[in-house]
């Protein structure tokens, strides 16, 4: 569809127009755009560097626009993983890449915002589907594969189809014990895992003024679970304050044009929302937690690029403090970064978690993607704060994964079964 040559632009169109050196672009167009930041993690980095060499490319287009994070195989669960890490370190050193985060520093999608690499308006590509996370700061982040990354690192450019945009106008206020994880699960359940395929999701409305940066990162992170290319929030005073807190310059407001063209606009009130869970084996099989409360669990997982931030650990600790997880339940906690772990230590959050029986894992991705460090056996059931519950995702194909907020996962760990954090005392007494 030709989205007209007049009228305003969505956030996605504004960013792609700027990156393509154009006054304006419209949904459906193909553009070649300059990359502001390229991210690779340890699953793909060594291979991409090798392919670059095979293509005869000696140096990446800009080592200061390249970020490398070792986060998936941390600490190295095998000799092969350790060897891959070794090769990555050699490549990083040879390429002169300064933004390199070695094993234990954290998960890429936490580190890039936390360490000040992400600015509103940027176009960011990463060899990871959850690169949409940076939309929380008004940056167009999207996942690509290794061949596209080789091309991007060689040339600094990549082709993009300008996506149509679906606008989510959010109103109302969240009830106590309900979080923005519940909001994005609710959106996935309502609209479906395919609803935003090839499209940009744009979040707005008065309710986003109540969403801190951690909450926005959670929402943008899971935009890809609805198929989205980008999951964009405008940059506002919350963005400005976050950027200053990270020690960088603040940001002017950056949003869509008021007369932007949207493929669809959904207005959703959050006031009546209950805690949500995604049920096996699709992220869009979503129900209020009460529908599945009482299902026994074997493992509870708090962490991942979706919900491993200090705000998430605080929410879990608030539920767990002074209690102990139910007999037979394994509670795993993986802080999203070293900085998160340090904050959790200094605030006493870590003590609350460990006293409650949590096993604290290294900052990283291990159990979430089924790599290592907390996998599931046949017939086991896990409830976690992560982003995918696909069949076989965390080990056995006969295991079940439920996705929920940190408060719901913590309440379930205490109860020994899926539990509504609002009914915690009832659940414990049962």
């Amino acid at each position: 569809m030709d989205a007209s040559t007049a009228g305003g632009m969505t956030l996605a169109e504004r960013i792609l127009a700027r990156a393509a050196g154009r006054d304006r672009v419209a949904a459906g167009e193909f553009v070649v755009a300059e990359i502001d930041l390229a991210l690779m993690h340890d699953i793909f980095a060594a291979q991409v560097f090798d392919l670059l060499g095979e293509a005869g490319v000696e140096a990446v287009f800009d080592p200061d626009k390249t970020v490398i994070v070792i986060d998936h195989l941390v600490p190295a669960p095998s000799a092969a993983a350790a060897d891959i890490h070794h090769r990555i370190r050699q490549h990083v050193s040879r390429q002169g890449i300064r933004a390199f985060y070695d094993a234990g520093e954290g998960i890429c999608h936490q580190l890039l915002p936390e360490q000040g690499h992400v600015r509103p308006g940027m176009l960011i590509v990463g060899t990871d589907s959850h690169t949409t996370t940076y939309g929380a700061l008004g940056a167009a982040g999207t996942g690509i594969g290794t061949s596209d990354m080789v091309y991007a690192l060689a040339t600094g450019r990549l082709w993009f189809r300008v996506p149509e945009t679906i606008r989510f106008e959010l109103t109302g206020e969240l009830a106590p014990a309900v979080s923005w994880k519940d909001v994005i699960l609710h959106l996935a359940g309502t609209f479906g895992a395919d609803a935003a395929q090839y499209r940009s999701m744009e979040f707005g409305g008065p309710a986003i003024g109540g969403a801190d940066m951690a909450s926005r990162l959670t929402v943008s992170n899971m935009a890809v679970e609805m198929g989205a290319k980008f999951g964009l929030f405008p940059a506002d005073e919350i963005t400005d304050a976050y950027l200053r807190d990270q020690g960088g310059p603040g940001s002017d407001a950056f949003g869509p044009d008021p007369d932007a063209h949207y493929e669809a606009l959904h207005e959703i009130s959050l006031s009546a929302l209950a805690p949500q869970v995604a049920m096996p084996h699709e992220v869009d099989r979503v129900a209020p937690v009460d529908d599945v409360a009482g299902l026994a669990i074997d493992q509870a997982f708090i962490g991942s690029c979706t919900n491993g931030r200090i705000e998430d650990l605080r929410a879990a600790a608030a539920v767990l403090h002074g209690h102990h997880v139910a007999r037979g339940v394994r509670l795993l906690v993986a802080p999203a970064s070293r900085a998160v772990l340090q904050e959790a230590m200094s605030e006493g959050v870590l003590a609350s978690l460990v006293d409650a029986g949590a096993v604290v894992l290294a900052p990283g991705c291990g159990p979430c993607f089924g790599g290592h460090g907390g996998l599931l056996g046949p017939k086991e059931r896990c409830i976690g704060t992560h982003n995918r519950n696909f069949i076989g995702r965390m080990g056995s194909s006969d295991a079940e994964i439920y996705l929920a907020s940190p408060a719901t996962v913590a309440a379930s760990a205490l109860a020994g079964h899926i539990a509504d954090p609002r009914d915690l005392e009832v659940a414990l007494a049962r």
Partner: protein
Amino acid sequence: MPADVFRGRVWRFGHDISTDVLSPGQYAVDPVDVRKRHVLESINPAFATGVEAGDVVVAGRNFGCGSSRETAAENLKALGVACVVAESLARIFMRNAVAVGLPVMICPGVHEAFTDGDDIEVDLGSGRVSGGAHGSSLLGEALPEEMRTILAAGGMLAMLRSQTH
């Protein structure tokens, strides 16, 4: 362009086929000759051994959803799959397929119209899909010329080599 037309035998799959089944994580760093033996094994164990060069994969909605792993597309290409036609394709899978030179197309209705073993003809340039037991003829979404250009070049790495040498 004749290179945009594919005729072959159908292998049909359902909705939301994820990268976790197209390229299971436990073989993530294995060579393609190992990886391709496990493609879709948890859904149709006969596929990886029975698929022949030129066969066509037909699928439902959201084919290739999940991670950004390019091996999902690369594995299918290594098995000789000529083309993937689905009700819809996950964005990154579609992008990766083009990047590795695996032809793909979106065609609503294709999942209903075809079943395993049918003959199918797919025209990327016009979007036309035809064949099947009932002689179906469907109009899908022609693959944009920009993507067909990359496919014709053999993928993004081949494009890069042609630009750097």
